[in-house]
């Protein structure tokens, strides 16, 4: 047995060696040929120029605008959806954030919201997350952004509600049916990678300016995770359990309701968690079409470069995200316990406690309906003759403004040197190789690399995606974006391995770093772009850095989980055999989590691509700028749409290659287990 696995290991080593050599040969050949044919057939298109396809897409956009009032599709379909979506958001706003029923304030005041949130967190999660919800919401009140935060919460709740209503049934279907799953997957890829900027302006033609468009834009981005993860949960129910239930005579639907759903419950809750996070990450962008909430505060503050106020609002988004994340995670752990059939006993003890909590909450909600002090968050309290200030926001704004000013003034020379080094030695050579080679050379090289790294199917996908990119007319811009994406991913993985290994090996490091990672993921990027531009100038490097800030947390978390998952006995055995820490990391922990590393690379790439448009706002140029310009100028709409499609194609290309590589790594590491 051990002889066989040792043999397999040796074979795999040699395969990997061969693969590495082949990649090197392809790269060397590419650079060599580049020397001869540089600058020919580069398919370039200047930034203000358009081609025939782009013009046709412009015309389509204009005709939608011209015919929206007469076309029955609008009158009977889109308008109905718009009305329904607006009603839904307004209903939640009336509860939480906006004047309702002739009152100057919403139906539930801050005290009621705090009470309900704490109770729900405790009922579905545990006491610890209930406390977190309590403190988190009070903090938002002290920040002085209660009302916009509740607008954001209303929009998020509405979007998540619809996402679950549509997503869970679709996810179950995709989990049960292979053909449906195959049809759905590319559609979900499309929804997740197509930049929102591309369809935001046209969406307002369909669903008008305001909360409805905000809701639907959020929905497009937030729906895929719950579908994907629900399907995954259904698919991973062990076949043995299913067969057992079938042999006991249950029908298909009985098996679904009694076996599959309960067993997939924990996974489905994780899907809900991801959908909530995705919905929150759309807050700022939705603000561009007048969707209410904290995004408005951020966007308006940045008109006058007021980083402090924008940061304060961004911080409130982070707090909401962390509370919702921890509560749903706790809920999924509890669903796991309940799913194993222990709910009966716990329920008996919980009931009186639950009733007590509900009564208290009801009283607080009533108070918050009736009394002003409990309804709108006070900025100070007067008890007797003493006045207590309840304003944390001003201090946060002041502190972050002076921190930004200090960084911009005193760090400039260091950051400029970093930018220049990376650009001259990283971005420039890579970009030149990709975009100044003739298209057929770059094309052939990428397909060969896909073949070596991912196999025949990955190579076929590469041929298809690259051909379609040529058809969009944006080949050279796509190659520039690809160069920046690859470089950003290298940086993401460097950080992922460094910090991920540290976190995976030390529980304390994990506890300290994890909230920072969460913050980096949900803090609206607009907030930190202002100081970044001051530090690194309007440049492609600034775009790369923005992408790294957003994508590194995901990679770090995945690597940390992988490292922590390496069995403790193996590590102990290696230590007993005399390995030092460095050897344990490089010879045991990293090789054993090779599949996790591949997954982290895959997710890192996808998250980096999600930031291409943001990079376009700070000098990243290429496809990101094309999308931004298309959002701003109707004459460039078609080009922006084509650029969005090119980004999706790059995403599919990189995703399929890295996934195939991950599967190969998986197949070879299986011999270890």
């Amino acid at each position, binding site marked *: 047995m051990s002889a066989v696995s040792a043999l397999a290991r040796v074979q795999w080593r040699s395969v990997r060696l061969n693969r590495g050599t082949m990649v090197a040969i392809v790269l060397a050949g590419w650079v060599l040929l580049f020397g001869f044919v540089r600058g020919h057939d580069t398919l370039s298109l*200047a930034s*203000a120029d358009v081609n025939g396809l782009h013009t046709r897409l412009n015309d389509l956009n*204009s005709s939608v*605008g*011209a015919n929206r*009032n007469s076309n029955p599709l609008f009158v009977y379909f889109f308008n109905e959806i718009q009305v329904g979506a607006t009603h839904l958001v307004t209903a939640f706003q009336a509860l939480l954030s906006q004047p309702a029923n*002739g009152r*100057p*304030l919403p139906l539930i*005041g801050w005290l009621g919201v705090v*009470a309900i949130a704490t109770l729900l967190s405790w009922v579905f999660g545990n*006491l610890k997350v209930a406390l977190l919800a309590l403190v988190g919401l009070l903090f938002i009140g002290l920040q002085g952004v209660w009302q916009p935060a509740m607008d954001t919460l209303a929009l998020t709740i509405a979007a998540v509600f619809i996402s679950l209503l549509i997503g869970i049934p679709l996810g179950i279907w995709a989990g049960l049916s292979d053909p449906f799953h195959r049809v759905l997957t590319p559609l979900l890829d499309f929804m997740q990678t197509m930049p929102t900027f591309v369809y935001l*302006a046209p969406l*307002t*033609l369909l669903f008008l*300016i*305001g909360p409805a468009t905000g809701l639907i834009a959020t929905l497009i981005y937030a729906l895929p995770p719950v579908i994907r993860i629900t399907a995954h949960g259904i698919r991973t129910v062990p076949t043995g359990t299913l067969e057992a239930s079938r042999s006991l005579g249950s029908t298909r639907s009985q098996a679904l309701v009694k076996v599959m759903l309960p067993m997939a419950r924990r996974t489905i809750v994780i899907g809900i968690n991801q959908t909530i996070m995705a919905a929150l990450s759309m807050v700022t962008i939705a*603000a*561009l079409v*007048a969707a209410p909430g904290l995004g408005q505060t951020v*966007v*308006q503050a*940045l*008109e*006058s470069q*007021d980083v402090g106020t924008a940061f304060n609002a961004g911080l409130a988004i982070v707090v909401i995200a962390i509370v919702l994340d921890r509560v749903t995670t706790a809920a999924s752990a509890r669903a796991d316990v309940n799913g194993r059939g222990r709910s009966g006993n716990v329920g008996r*003890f919980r009931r009186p*406690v639950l009733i*007590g*909590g509900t009564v208290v909450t009801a009283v*607080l909600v009533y*108070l918050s*309906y009736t*009394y*002003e*002090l*409990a*309804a709108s968050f006070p900025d100070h*309290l*007067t008890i007797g003759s003493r006045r207590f200030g309840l304003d944390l926001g001003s201090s946060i704004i002041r502190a972050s403004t002076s921190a930004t000013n200090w960084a*911009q003034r005193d760090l*400039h020379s260091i950051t400029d040197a970093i930018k*220049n080094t990376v*650009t001259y030695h990283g971005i420039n050579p890579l970009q030149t190789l990709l975009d100044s080679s003739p298209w057929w050379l770059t094309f052939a090289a990428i397909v060969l690399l896909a073949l070596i790294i991912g196999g025949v199917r990955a190579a076929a996908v590469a041929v298809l995606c690259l051909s379609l990119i040529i058809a969009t007319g944006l080949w050279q811009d796509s190659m520039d974006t690809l160069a920046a994406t690859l470089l950003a991913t290298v940086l993401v993985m460097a950080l992922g391995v460094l910090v991920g290994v540290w976190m995976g090996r030390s529980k304390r490091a994990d506890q300290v770093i994890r909230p920072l990672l969460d913050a980096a993921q949900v803090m609206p990027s607009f907030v930190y772009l*202002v100081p970044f*531009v*001051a530090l690194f*100038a*309007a*440049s492609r490097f600034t775009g790369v850095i923005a992408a790294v800030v957003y994508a590194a947390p995901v990679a770090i978390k995945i690597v940390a989980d992988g490292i922590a998952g390496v069995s403790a006995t193996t590590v102990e055995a290696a230590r007993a055999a005399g390995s030092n820490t460095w050897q344990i990391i490089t010879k045991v922990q990293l090789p054993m989590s090779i599949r996790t590393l591949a997954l982290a690379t895959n997710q890192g790439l996808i998250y980096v691509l999600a930031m291409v448009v943001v990079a*376009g*706002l*700070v*000098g990243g140029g290429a496809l990101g*700028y094309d999308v*931004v310009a298309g*959002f*701003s*100028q109707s*004459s460039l709409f078609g080009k922006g749409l084509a650029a969005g499609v090119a980004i999706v194609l790059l995403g599919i290309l990189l995703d399929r290659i890295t996934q195939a590589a991950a599967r190969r790594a998986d197949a070879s590491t299986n011999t270890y287990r």
Partner: protein
Amino acid sequence: MGRFTSSSRGRSAVRRLSVVAVAVSMAVLAGCGGAKVGGTSSTTTNAGGTSSGTVKKTSCGTFNLADNPWVGYEADVAVIQYLAKNKLNCTVAVKHITEQVSWQGFSTGQVDAILENWGHDDLKKQYIDNTHVAQDLGSDGLKGVIGWYVPPWMATAYPDITDWKSLNKYADMFKTSESGGKGQLLDGDPSYVTNDAALVKNLNLNFKVVQGGSETALIQSFRAAQQNKKPLLAYFYSPQWFLNEVPLVKVNLPPYTAGCDSNAAKVACDYPAYVLNKVVSTKFANSGSPAFTLVKNFSWTNEDQNVVAKYIAVDKMSDEAAAKKWVDANPAKVNTWLNGT
């Protein structure tokens, strides 16, 4: 064992919660006199005109005003909103949206007026000439100037840099990691079609256009360039509040003459001065609303706007406070706007 402890922890939590609830309700009732929501003792002022009895009859209804994302425009909106709300008793719905989306709002009936339109010939053609959902109300008094600017320290150190003919002499200074060995000309806001690439080519300048991608990128670049005495040549425009903070200096290109920009690929002259105009929806124009008359009469100068924009962006005043301060200081101008409402 574990179950028992967890539920006892839960019970004590309930007790604690009840204590908190009682304490809070006592604080509410005793400490602050228990002001009721919507009650007469309520001090909330944001209810607008609905509760006060001093306002004359409502004839205005809802006035949908587009607010495009730059501070100068926000200043236009601040004063118009202030006057429409307080003098005309309108309910003003301000929509924070970008320019293209604002024009689309004319066709969906969601936008009544744009107060500061910069060009946009394609949108004019679609919404005014072709579908007639919008109307041009002419100048709002503002003069838009577009061009190439340098930070003030450069104009002092190199006095001849404001002439385009000396740009090539200084091209080396403007090199960056982005400009591929040539001087960098930083373009910014993607909202405008620029002729910069054609200008660089036709004036034989040894420069490369680099896309900054946003107004934020432009302003930050200029701020850093002035602070650190770094060279920068970039596309910018006036009126813009940032010019109050750092008075950028314009580089003179060959002067604009009528028609010199008719062939976009052959352009070799400066940008024309834009007359910024007001655009309203046809529906709004025919509604007889006093808000329409206000928009029709509205006209002020770049200096006026810069003052209000400074109140908002630099002095951090609220839109309403900034508008009130300016309106109180300029009664004559305001009265001509309110004439006929």
